[in-house]
């Protein structure tokens, strides 16, 4: 189960960043440096067929690079709202692809709208974190263990 989750997450993240932002993505390890400098995050709820939450944290620098590719906005001209929108859309797309990979093809699912600047998760020990790198920029995607995926390993296991 853990392997299936890892594969689904890697595929979802790489496809999303490649198709949305023409960026190559690599899996990184938790020993790799976390996003440094100013970071931005977003969260989104899984609604059906199970409940949970997916979060992502990107450095502002990475989002500005993506913005330049996607929106043609120069890095100096990137409003905070534009960067939040980009991160929200990235997370929204990753979430949809992830569930598509994980669930049977005929299984419908529903996800919520992305929320920028979420509060810290109340139980961080229940989070499972995936680390990635694009260019020189690390970023993370996290799932909460509010799933019915009993075998979802957390960072502590």
């Amino acid at each position, binding site marked *: 189960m853990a392997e299936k989750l890892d594969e689904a997450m890697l595929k979802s993240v790489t496809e999303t960043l490649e198709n949305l932002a023409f960026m190559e993505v690599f899996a990184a390890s938790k020993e790799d440096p976390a996003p440094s400098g100013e970071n931005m995050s977003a969260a989104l709820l899984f609604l059906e067929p199970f409940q949970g939450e997916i979060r992502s944290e990107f450095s502002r620098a990475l989002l500005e690079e993506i913005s330049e590719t996607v929106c043609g906005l120069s890095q100096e001209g990137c409003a905070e709202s534009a960067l939040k929108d980009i991160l*929200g859309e990235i997370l929204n797309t990753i979430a949809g692809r992830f569930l598509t990979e994980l669930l049977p093809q005929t299984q419908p699912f529903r996800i919520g709208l992305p929320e920028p600047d979420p509060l810290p998760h109340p139980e961080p020990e229940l989070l499972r974190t995936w680390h990635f790198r694009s260019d020189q920029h690390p970023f993370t995607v996290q799932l909460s263990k509010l799933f019915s995926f009993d075998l979802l390993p957390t960072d502590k296991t």
Partner: protein
Amino acid sequence: MGKKVLIVDDSNTMRKIVTRALRQAGLDFDEILEAGDGQEALAVLKKEKVDLVLSDINMPNMDGLAFLREKATDADLRGIPVVMITTEAGNDVIGEARSMGAVGSIKKPFTPDQIQETVGNLF
């Protein structure tokens, strides 16, 4: 006369991505219009002669399915083709959209080729 395409999505980023994909797909259109939700989209459709709508499903205020439902009640708007662009999967959501008049769907993330394949014959 050039064709007009309306892109409906609450994300400005996604509207730009769809615009980029339409251009890269080499489709023959002259103008791109944008709307942030279903309500705005209906207002645009009442003012402009739009040839094709590309719409997200999951939006605040009025989502894509509600937009289709409202559009179907207006005789002047009913015939405008709508293609859904979405992360939502499962036959029931797309099936529901088709039963309300959507002519196709594209799943995010998509490539220009996938856009071309789905909407090319609508131009």
